[in-house]
């Protein structure tokens, strides 16, 4: 029985030692295309419906996670010596954060907080390039003055 083959360029024929592709191959290609289409559609519908939102979302999530972690780490590493004046030490820390920023984030405001258990923390409001929202992070500091615990 003669096999019907659809056209393929001469160079491809030489390269693949093939005269085209069979009906089964054509069906396979169509099937792969269908699977890919479904996968892409599912991906889009699963992640906000369109590619623009998808990539924007990815960027935002990454930027947020990175900056959030970096700011938290900076705050956790901030140690106010137990004998010193916490307000003064904090003022220096705040100025350095606001001046230099952290991991691409621009710090808008930074305030000292004393929690119910006596430990001190810092609350920062910040923005990231390409993200319109003002973001917030709050973390406990690495050390605090003993005198200020009882506030």
């Amino acid at each position, binding site marked *: 029985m003669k096999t019907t083959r659809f056209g393929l360029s001469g160079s491809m024929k030489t390269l693949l030692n*093939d005269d085209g592709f069979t009906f089964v191959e054509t069906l396979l290609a169509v099937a*792969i295309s269908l*699977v890919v289409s479904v*996968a892409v559609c599912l991906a889009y519908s699963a992640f906000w419906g369109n590619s623009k939102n*998808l990539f924007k979302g990815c960027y935002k999530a990454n930027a947020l996670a*990175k900056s959030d972690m970096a700011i938290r780490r900076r705050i956790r590493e901030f140690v106010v010596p137990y004998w010193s004046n916490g307000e003064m030490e904090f003022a220096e820390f705040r100025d350095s954060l606001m001046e230099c920023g952290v991991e691409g984030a621009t710090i808008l405001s930074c305030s000292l907080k004393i929690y119910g258990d006596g430990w001190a923390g810092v609350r920062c409001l910040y923005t990231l390039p390409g993200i319109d929202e003002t973001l917030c992070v709050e973390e406990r500091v*690495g*050390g605090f003055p003993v005198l200020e615990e009882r506030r």
Partner: protein
Amino acid sequence: MKAVFVALAVALAAYGVFLSVASSRSFCSRVRAEEEAVRKVLGVLEEAKRTLDMCASMDCDLDTVETVTAALFAAGVEDIVVEDVSSGINEMFWPEKVLDSPRIAGLLEKDECVAEYGWANSIADFRGREYPIANRIPLLNVYEAESDLTRALCSVAQVKDESKIELLLKKMEGRERMDAKEILKLLSLKEASMLASFFGTKTAFWRVSFKALGRYRVYGVFAAIPENPESAVVREYRLVERRADVLR
């Protein structure tokens, strides 16, 4: 075959999109998980504080290291180190008269017996500090101090009888239970004297560190807070520093 190539190219592109989304999501969840883990391991320091508070009322800190280590071990952490970080020379709070004495200055010059933490003693030289920075807790826990430092301080205190110093060091080395009054009696020092405020058996600052979850090294520094400005009795320990390092 052309169609198959095109289909594979599209499949690759779709796979790329999936990968980027998946890696982004996995990165975010890893960050969240790490933050949660850091909070959890730092929380173990609360257990150390509870145990130190239980040891606070004891006359001397002879068993404190073992007690805290056992409590933290029971809390599921490993590689626990409990150390006295205040029984050494503290340039910030020690009286200048003592710091300038030749033997102490000699130790300082060699960078030996130096402590990072410590209180100002209100009898020795409080340097204008207020309670609880200045208090009556003796500046050293003689059990934890280096013998060179104890010898140097005895010489500053003009304890001339070498046998008394050796006896004290022997008792400390043998972990023989003594309180501050007994030490002063042994060295024939008056309780109200400035040098008497150096010799004690309670640790003012403990540093506790341990390994948790296999990848974090956690450090916490606890300060002894006396009952009142005139008391050397420790009321509680207060966490003044804490840190969690990720081990590589």
